[in-house]
Every structure is written in C-alpha cells, then in structure tokens.
C-alpha cells in the first residue's frame, strides 16, 4: 500500500458529470447523472481497476479522467494540480493522460497507416523524426516494425490492440486509461495483452486505470479496485483484500456472476444474485441506489443513503449492513 499522505499522482475529487437528455417528443429535458460524486486516487506505477455493469458511468468516468469530457463539478488533479486550469498549463497536464479504447478496429483512422497513427502523439508535439520511436515502440509491444506501413484493417484484432497500446505509450504518459480495451479480444489474447501491459508497466513505470465489467481480470491486474454502481463508488479497496472479502452486496453479486473454471462447481453454485437491469440514472432510486436489487435491503436503505465508510484498513464501503457478522457471511457462503 502506498502512503496516502503525500500527494498522489492522480487525485479525483467529488467528480460529477451530468447530461441533459430529452426524450423523443417531450419538451422537458431531464438530468442524467452519469458520474455522481466519484473520488479516487492513484499512485505512480500503480494500477487501479474500476468495475461495474454497463450503464454505471464507467466510460464517462474514463473520458472525464483523460480530459475528453469536462466535469460538471469536482476536480481532477495530477501531481496535485488541476487538469482544467485554463490555458497552456492545463493543456500540458491533460497531455499526461492517454487512453486505450474499447474497439481496437475503430481507434485508428482507417485511411492512415498504423505507423502514422502510432506516431501521432509525437508529431502533434512537434517531434520531427518519429519513425524511429515508432519502430522501437512497435517492437516493445511485440509487433513487427514493418506493420507501421500497413493500414489498420490489414492487422488482426490483437495486432490492432497492440498498436493502440503502442500509440498510448509512445509519448511517455503518466497515466493510461484502458476503457474495456481487452473485452473485445478472445480469452487467450486477453491474457497475452494483460501480461504485456504488466511487463510494460514494470519497464516504463506508467500508471494504469482499467475500466471493465470483468471483475476477475481487474482483480488480477490491479493494485486497487473500485466498484461503481449508478455513477457512485460503492466499494473501494486494495485488490487482495477485495478478492478475499468483498463487502458490498453488489460486489458479492458481481463476483457471483463471474464464471468459475470448474464446471462441476459452476453448476452446483446456483443462480447469480443479481436480477433485473440497472435502474435509470435519470431517476435513481431513493436512499441507497442499490436497494431495488439488493438481497440485504431493509427500510433504512429506502430512506437513507449510506455514506462510504471505512470497514477497516482503508477498505471503503457504502452500505448500511455490509460487514455485519451474520447476513453477509451467510450470503457469501451461498455464493462461493
């Protein structure tokens, strides 16, 4: 665990982003709170996993962190300095972020060569001869340098993903956000790419944020894990503690939804705990937002919103009942 007292590399404070949405045919616009008061931090050389179902605001969070979207409220600090400071200072801070996108095929201009796309962060900075750096970077991610002259569609999915990683890393960013970047690849390739990312982290000291719905993968590669539900953080912990004992009923439910490698065990385990869809973030449920789907929910949950509280050694959870000795344990037996 890194020391929390020094200024962390990345600090996100009470980040909010709202969208005005108008239903078809209606004149009133409603407020969609995609990200609603998220705080988190990340140390240099560390990885942070952000997990949640689709529609929970993960992608919006990713775009906010890298500066593609402006927050409605809250601050994003890198080395203690706001990335949305007006002028060149803020722009330079935003340059420290890079992103690897969800769809490797769509993240490169189809009409330009892979080399030109990979070189773009350097050429935009005005670095004159980027081709050498591109070659080095392509080799680093395990691609043949001759791929630089190909068009994106002439590469396989895995090669495209490696090229996007090369592009993200070429200008030496402090933080790379991976937005579901491995979800579209097959399992064997996922493992390969994840290992590659971890090796690169050791070599370059870059910090990663993994945004994903895949709890198992995120747990395996992140130092810390944050679980999001409807735009809010419901649990935050370092990943070993989290792997051993998730506290929030939503985290438990997510874990129950991961497939186990053993089919006998998998069959005997019964149904997943989570039913129904995520409620609309336009009209989130009262009190605890998870109460509509929560197996532990009581009257209190309908009325009072639980705050993030420390359940011991920095393990944060937003639930009135999580960590109670009786019921969650009962439940986790049923689950595991």
């Amino acid at each position, binding site marked *: 665990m890194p020391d929390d007292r020094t200024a962390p590399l990345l600090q996100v404070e009470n980040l909010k982003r709202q969208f005005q949405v108008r239903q078809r045919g209606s004149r009133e616009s409603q407020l969609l709170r995609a990200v609603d008061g998220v705080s988190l931090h990340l140390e240099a050389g560390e990885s942070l996993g952000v997990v949640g179902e689709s529609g929970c605001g993960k992608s919006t969070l990713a775009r906010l962190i890298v500066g593609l979207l402006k927050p409605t409220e809250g601050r994003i600090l890198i080395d203690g300095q706001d990335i949305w400071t007006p002028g060149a200072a803020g722009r330079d801070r935003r340059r420290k972020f890079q992103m690897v996108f969800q769809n490797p095929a*769509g*993240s490169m201009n189809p*009409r*330009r060569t892979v080399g030109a796309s990979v070189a*773009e*962060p350097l050429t935009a900075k005005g670095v004159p001869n980027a081709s050498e750096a591109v070659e080095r970077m392509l080799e680093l991610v395990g691609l043949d340098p001759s791929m630089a002259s190909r068009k994106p569609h*002439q*590469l396989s*999915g895995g090669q495209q993903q490696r090229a996007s990683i090369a592009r993200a890393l070429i200008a030496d960013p402090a933080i790379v956000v991976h937005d579901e970047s491995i979800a579209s690849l097959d399992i064997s390739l996922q493992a390969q790419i994840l290992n590659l990312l971890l090796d690169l982290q050791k070599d370059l000291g870059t910090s990663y944020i993994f945004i994903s719905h895949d709890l198992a993968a995120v747990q395996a590669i992140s130092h810390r894990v944050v679980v999001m539900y409807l735009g809010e953080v419901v649990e935050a912990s370092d990943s070993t503690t989290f792997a051993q004992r998730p506290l929030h009923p939503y985290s438990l439910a997510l874990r129950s939804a991961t497939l186990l490698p053993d089919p006998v065990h998998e069959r005997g385990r019964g149904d997943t705990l989570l039913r129904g869809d995520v409620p609309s973030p336009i009209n989130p449920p009262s009190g605890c937002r998870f109460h509509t789907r929560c197996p532990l929910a009581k009257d209190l949950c309908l009325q009072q919103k639980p705050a993030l509280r420390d359940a011991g050694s920095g393990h944060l959870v937003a639930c009135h009942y999580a960590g109670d000795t009786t019921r969650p344990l009962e439940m986790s037996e049923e689950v595991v």
Partner: protein
Amino acid sequence: MTASSGPAPTGLRLPLPLAKLLGHGGGAFGLAIMVFFVILAVFGRLLSPYDPNANDYMSLLAPPSATHWFGTDELGRDTLSRVIDGSRIAVAVAFLSVSIAMAVGVVIGVVAGFFGGLVDAVLNRSQDVLFAFPTLLLAIILVAVLGPGLFNASLAIAIVYSPRFARMARASTLSIKTSEYLDAARLAGVSTPVILVRHVLPNALPPVIVLAALSMSTAQLAYASLSFLGLGVSPPQADWGSMLSKGRDFITIAPWLVIWPTVALVLLMLAFNVLGDAIRDVLDPSHTSTGKSPDTIR
C-alpha cells in the same frame, strides 16, 4: 473478426480504385462513355467534319446523308459538328457546377457537423431554405439574377446542388466525430484544424464522391433545361439544350434535329449514373468482389 495476418481482401479502397472500377462492368462502361465525351469536348474542333457555326445555304434542313451524317438545321449548319461542339459545354457544366457545389457543400457540412450548436443551426437552416425550392425553379431564378451564360448557369446549378453535399458531408462528419480515432487524435494533442483536414475530411469524402458522380448527370440535365429556356450560353454557340429548343419547331419535318442532341444527352447522363453506381460499389467495403468476375459484363 478475422484474425489473419497479411492483407485482408475487404476494403482495399485507396491502392487501386481505378483498377477496381474497370473490373466492375458498369464502371468500365460508364468510364468509357465519359472518356469518349471528354475527348469529344477537348478535341471536338479537330474531329468535327464542319465548322459548327458555318452555314450551308445549299442544304437547309437536309436529312442525314453521306455528306451530313446527322443532317443539317434550318440555317444549314451540320448537326454532327454541333452535337460534338455541344459536348464541350455539357462536360464543362457538369464538372464545373458539381465541383463548386461539392467544394462549398463539403466545407459547410463538415464545419456544421463538427462544431454543432449554433454554427450547425445557422448553416443547416440556410441550406434548408435552398432545399425548399424546386431545383429547376431556383436555378432559373438565380440565372435570372446572375445573367445567362456558361459560368453563371453553372454557378446557379452549384448553388442549388450544394445543400445535398452539405447534408451528406454533415452526416458523415457526425458519425466520424464520435469515432474513437478522433478521440485518440484529441488525446494525442492534435489541433482542431489538423483534425479536420487529416481525420474528418478524408473519411467524410467517399460518400460525397459517389453523390458527385450521380449529381453530374442531373446537373447536366438541369443545364440543358436552362439552355432550352434560353438561359444558357448565347447563340450561335452550339449547345444541346438550345439545339432541342430550336429543333422543336421543325420536329415534324426534321426530327434529326432533336433526336441527335437527345441521344447525346441521354448517353452522357447514363454514363454519369452508371459510373456513380460503380464508384459506390467500389468504395463500399462490404462490396467484396474478389477480382473481376466474368459475369458482370453488361
């Protein structure tokens, strides 16, 4: 997702578009006729048997014969020479008007789509106003204001046609705007003008090019209509539209005066149309013809 290394057969767009176009039966046909007319337009004066404006009072309204293959008009001018000379105007107008319409429309569409908001609203509404008028009516009004002539007529047609290009460019720009490669470019720190030129424009153009080829056919017809109404080039310059207009008076006694310009007009329109369809097929990545299939010859 096909996980194969080596060049995939899908979407080989830029390297050999011409070869693919020639492999496409319709494309080869359209291209051949278009090239034929362009040659006529450029070298017409050398190829035509007579001076298109020379009068031969010994043979007025002469039917097609060995000396005058397409016959002569009421002033004894050789119809073949005039049809050839008219192709100059037809080809020039088609290219000129569509180029102007495309340039103006693409700039408006890309800017409107990319920047959105008020810019989009203003540009879009102004284009809607143009769209509201019937094509030919608006062109006639514009020529009336600008004055007749080759360039003014082309300009009028260009103004009338520009909203189509703007709409199409705007639509592609909107989808490109939300693409991940544009986000990636922004993250790389690429400036907005460079993003527009390097990423948006090249990807917005292919559908516009198809529209351009198809529009040449109708632009050419629109010009012929203007010319038919006497709003084209001034006489004695030969021009298919005005030839039809004049020939109409003699349609019962000298039908060749309307037949030949019409044949030329239809042939050129057909060429542009077929070529446009072929370009669309070639640019469409889902159209994966694996080379020249012999049964596509029409």
